[in-house]
């Protein structure tokens, strides 16, 4: 069996029909990881014991002729910002280098209950802060399509693992684009569900009003299958929404004729790479051919999204990261006084970007600047939300490029934080307003680098979002082959 041809959708049947076993599949994936991950760096920790135990459970169900759960035998990777009981969970930070989580994140519990097999934990920017994975406290991740380039971030390891065939699907987190941007750079599908759709219990917090958990996969159907097993109210997360979970597969392959696709002019202006523009415009043409009505729209406050995001996200981060103080878990650097111990621990444990964001957020929340920065950004956040309310009164989905350029070189933006922040210019707004978004591959540059197309939907309207993404994926399949 060629594991490169497997999908989330096909493995369950392969196991059910005894063409392979879950244990043999796990063997094959670990062999691939051991042969290929040294050059990519997608994984931080492998959890073989746990994976084989789960595989034996799936194989025993097959042996007994039990009905198999929906993700039976699916080998997955999980971003290291999600806790896994008994398995090292670092958030990509030295401050948690030896942290063994005492409980599982709800998404991990749910996916394992659905039969998925956790192969390991993936590399990411420290505390999910970054757009290139270069801020990992351990080592960078290389883009599987070109090892001299970044995989995107912050969920770079999860995107690269799927792109390189070292997992069939994976989990990432998205606070400003951290699922969709690496999905675009690595040529895979990445879905950020609606805020509140998926539990965040066990997600190491970065910015709580913006953090989302979502899946990566090779196809739109694969991420729909993953979401089906992840979504829904969780009593352990008070921000998870009490909204019924629809059947995401029911209308996935349905017609898109008559759906209105909004194309915001602000996303196609200055700074957009010509090859990205051409590929996304071609993708929009395919949707038009499939019967969608393409509607030019305006999201007038788009240019204010990045500054709004970097106030809101850093303010929340400065509060969330106050817990890393060397007392209850994580590393400690000794000091003569409690205060000295706190400072030395945080100085030694946090990397440059994390310190920069803590400083920025602390500044924005400090006396005298709170109104000018934090409150101001929250008011502009309302304006951004209004932009989308107005747009969605006239259209069903919105289509844009996921990123302004294909994957950039390692080191290219490492010394310029502002340039790095602008890599998320097309993705941050969806986080700020809480709507779902997906990135699907829509072409390649002349250099062979993947290009992503972003589709944004209405709150909790993942079914329409996925249906349009599926239609575009199939229309574009011939071009991408």
């Amino acid at each position, binding site marked *: 069996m060629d594991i490169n041809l497997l999908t989330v959708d096909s493995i369950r049947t392969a196991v059910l029909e005894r063409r392979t076993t879950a244990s043999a599949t796990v063997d094959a994936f670990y062999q691939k990881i051991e042969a290929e991950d040294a050059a990519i760096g997608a994984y931080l920790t492998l959890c073989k014991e746990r994976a084989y135990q789960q595989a034996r459970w799936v194989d025993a169900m097959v042996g007994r002729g039990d009905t198999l759960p929906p993700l039976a035998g699916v080998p997955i990777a999980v971003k290291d910002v999600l806790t896994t009981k008994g398995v090292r969970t670092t958030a990509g930070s030295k401050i948690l280098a*030896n942290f*063994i989580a*005492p409980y599982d994140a709800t998404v991990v519990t749910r996916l394992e209950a659905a039969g998925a097999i956790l192969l390991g934990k993936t590399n990411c920017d420290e505390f999910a802060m970054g757009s290139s994975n270069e801020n990992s406290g351990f080592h960078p991740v290389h883009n599987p399509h070109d090892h001299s380039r970044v995989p995107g971030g912050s969920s770079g390891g999860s995107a690269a693992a799927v792109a390189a065939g070292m997992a069939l699907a994976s989990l990432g987190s998205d606070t400003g684009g951290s699922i969709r941007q690496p999905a675009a750079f690595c040529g895979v599908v990445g879905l950020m569900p609606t*805020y*509140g759709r998926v539990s965040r219990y066990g997600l190491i917090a970065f910015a709580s*009003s913006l953090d989302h958990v979502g899946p990566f996969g090779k196809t739109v159907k694969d991420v729909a299958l993953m979401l089906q097993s992840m979504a829904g109210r969780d*009593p352990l997360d*008070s*921000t998870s*929404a*009490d*909204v019924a979970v629809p059947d995401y597969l029911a209308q996935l392959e349905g017609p898109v004729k008559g759906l209105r696709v909004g194309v915001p002019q602000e996303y196609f202006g200055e700074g957009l790479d010509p090859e990205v523009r051409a590929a996304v415009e071609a993708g929009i043409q395919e949707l038009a051919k499939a019967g969608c009505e393409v509607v030019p729209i305006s999201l007038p*406050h788009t*240019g*204010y999204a*990045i*500054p709004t995001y*970097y*106030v809101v996200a850093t303010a929340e981060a*400065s509060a969330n990261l*106050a817990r890393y103080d*060397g*007392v*209850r*878990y*994580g*590393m*400690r650097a*000794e*000091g*003569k*006084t*409690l205060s*000295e*111990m706190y*400072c*030395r621990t*945080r*100085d030694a444990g*946090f990397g440059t970007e994390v*310190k*920069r964001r*803590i*400083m*920025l957020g*602390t*500044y924005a929340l*400090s006396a005298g600047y709170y109104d000018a*920065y934090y409150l*101001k*950004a*929250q*008011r*502009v*956040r*309302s*304006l951004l939300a209004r932009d989308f309310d107005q747009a969605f009164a006239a259209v069903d989905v919105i289509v844009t490029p996921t990123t302004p350029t294909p994957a950039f070189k390692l080191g290219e933006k490492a010394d310029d*934080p*502002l340039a790095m922040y602008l890599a998320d210019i097309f993705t941050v707004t969806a986080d700020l307003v*809480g709507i779902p978004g997906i990135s699907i591959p829509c072409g390649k540059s002349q250099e062979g680098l993947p290009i992503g197309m972003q589709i944004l939907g209405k709150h909790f309207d993942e079914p329409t979002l996925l249906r349009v993404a599926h239609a575009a994926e199939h229309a574009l399949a011939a071009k991408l082959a």
Partner: protein
Amino acid sequence: MVTEKDVSDVADLANLELTDEERARMLKDLNSILGYIDRLNELDTSNVEPMAQVASRYGTSTEVEANAMRLDEPRASLPHDAALRNAPNSDGTFFKVPKVIER
């Protein structure tokens, strides 16, 4: 304009010490990023409500549910030994930290 004193004050608030080199870099970066953030002042937001979170705005929760309270019922919690297992220093009952009170 952020000054060296601001960097020092904010580092204190954030429980960071920072080396001289880091402080110089922080001064430069914060001014560059805050300069970019200043473009928010181009917008008149005097009649716009601040938006702190998403849920209540879209009717997925009422204001009450946005501040969700669970029933006050006992339930299983993390066992004592599991809670202490990751502690850098503990005596088996409590977390241990450097002495806070001089006497």
